């Protein structure tokens, strides 16, 4: 929310991350292992952020990474896992079980309606469901009412206004117009719900080109734009690159070894040990890896191979 009219919103990753304060409520775009703003999360870790309150729908690598990096104080996502590929998210699990992270697990429609209320300028939205579920115990802020029209028992979920939404888009211009390719997951909604909006983008394109393509988020909704090629890696950002199953498998094995191993074998190497995106790309396998992750375009066999690769 807010109307942003600056003609040039382009800032660096470092400057964008420094806008986020310890304890902020942060909505993360994308979902599961698709189009998550991982470059920004790495930068938040380098800047040593603390107690971030993460909110969103069904996520995976992003939240697990952020928990392992020690920048999270509460998680309000509806699901955090590596699905049936690798299973339970070890960093997330450890952080929840030790009490380092407060479990505020939410449910997809409940939180979507909370974002909607914020986006619609309303204090709450009513829902028909969540009744009977103990997830309501994790949300004492939800209220029950008897509907004055139907007499039905409704749950009211309050507007959820994140301090900042971080979304990774395929294309942006410096004015803030965006082209996000489907699936949008909850991104377009959280951009309208949050107080401040930071977008990292694979490509910055000229405004004339963007207007021809047709933006699906108008410039005035976006506060800051960061050029971050490969900014969603190791999650996918189609059409540029598929999910890096090899890297995620490597990451997952390290998370199984425990919190200390994660710090020394993953954080030191891929986060604290790199200063630029080019250095990161070298660490993950350089242009060979980039070429392989873009090879999904070469047809079914090539695409399938990426999912077979460990």
């Amino acid at each position: 929310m807010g109307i942003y009219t600056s003609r040039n919103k382009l800032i660096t990753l470092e400057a964008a991350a420094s806008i986020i304060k310890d304890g902020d409520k942060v909505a993360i775009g994308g979902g599961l292992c698709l189009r998550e703003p991982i470059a920004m999360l790495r930068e938040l870790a380098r800047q040593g952020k603390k107690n971030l309150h993460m909110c969103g729908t069904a996520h995976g690598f992003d939240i697990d990474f952020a928990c392992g990096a020690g920048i999270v104080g509460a998680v309000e996502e509806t699901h955090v896992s590596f699905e049936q590929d690798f299973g339970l998210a070890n960093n997330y699990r450890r952080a929840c079980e030790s009490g380092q992270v407060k479990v505020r697990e939410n449910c997809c429609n409940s939180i979507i309606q909370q974002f909607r209320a914020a986006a619609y300028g309303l204090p709450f939205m009513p829902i028909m469901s969540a009744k009977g579920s103990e997830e309501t115990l994790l949300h004492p802020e939800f209220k029950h009412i008897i509907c004055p029209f139907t007499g039905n028992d409704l749950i009211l979920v309050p507007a959820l206004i994140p301090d900042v939404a971080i979304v990774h888009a395929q294309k942006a211009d410096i004015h803030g117009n965006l082209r996000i390719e489907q699936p949008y997951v909850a991104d377009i909604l959280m951009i309208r719900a949050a107080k401040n909006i930071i977008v990292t983008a694979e490509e910055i394109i000229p405004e004339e080109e963007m207007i021809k393509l047709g933006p699906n988020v108008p410039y005035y909704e976006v506060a800051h734009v960061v050029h971050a090629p490969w900014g969603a890696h190791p999650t996918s950002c189609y059409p540029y690159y598929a999910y890096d199953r090899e890297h995620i498998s490597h990451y997952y094995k390290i998370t199984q070894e425990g919190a200390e191993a994660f710090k020394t074998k993953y954080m030191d190497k891929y986060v604290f040990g790199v200063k630029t995106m080019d250095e990161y790309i070298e660490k993950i396998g350089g242009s060979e890896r980039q070429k392989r992750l873009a090879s999904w375009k070469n047809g079914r066999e090539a695409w399938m191979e990426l999912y077979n690769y460990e």
Partner: protein
Amino acid sequence: MSEKFKVTLDELFTYNVAKTIKDSTLVFHGVSSPIPMVAMYFAKLTHAKDMVYVGGVTSAIDPNPPFFPTTTNDWTMMQGRTAMITIDKLFDMAQKGELHRSFFSGAQVDKFGNQNVTMIGRPDKIKIKLPGGAGGCNLSGDCINYTIWTTRHRAPAKGDKRIYTLVDKCDFVTNVGHVTPFGTREQLRLVGKGPDWLVTELGVFDFDPESKILRLRYLYPDITVDDVLVNTQFKPVIHPEVRIMDMPTKEQVELMRKIDPLNVRKNEFPPKELERQFFI
């Protein structure tokens, strides 16, 4: 007589899940759902050609994926689609009573069909943090019916105890079955009618209409009623006509193998279970 044709457990299991889908209905699978993904596509290519397939968080309508990936949110799940919707629209449809079926699972499933996807332990003392229910807490209330599936019915022994998936009472209820910790579905006036099937690697259950307790209907050919009882913490209702389940045809099994070349459906099973095979 032609030679016997081999069917593996994962194939028979997925076939059972597919059979819970009716033609001309709107069906959605959630996250971490390789078996429902394959079962939905299989149903659409066989007995449910007019089913509306809404694919997970990706939310493509009627995709024809070149293969099933190891995540539910991927561009493979948009290939050959008709329209795209966004996930919020799926939840609106469910709330309006327009979502006919979905699929949910859990580390624990209790006798009334409630499922735990949140935690082993309680909020003040979490022993194991599970991934979370994603949309299940809402959709298990809203969708007209749903299928529960678990590939971990068999309860391994730990010392003199067993660790059950089918439990008398869940540590924590994420997704709602027929009788919740806060009352029955009727008392809560939920939109949907609740779970109507449970598919496990030992059998297929529906619910006893009176007691709303899980009722054993069909067994795998290598499983007995006693096997089910030993691996279930509560006493399920046994249908008077409980019998061995129907088998798919050779053509149906070949179709399933063709649409799921990466065998993502197998990822859900403990390796030992995948050794089970049947012949038709």
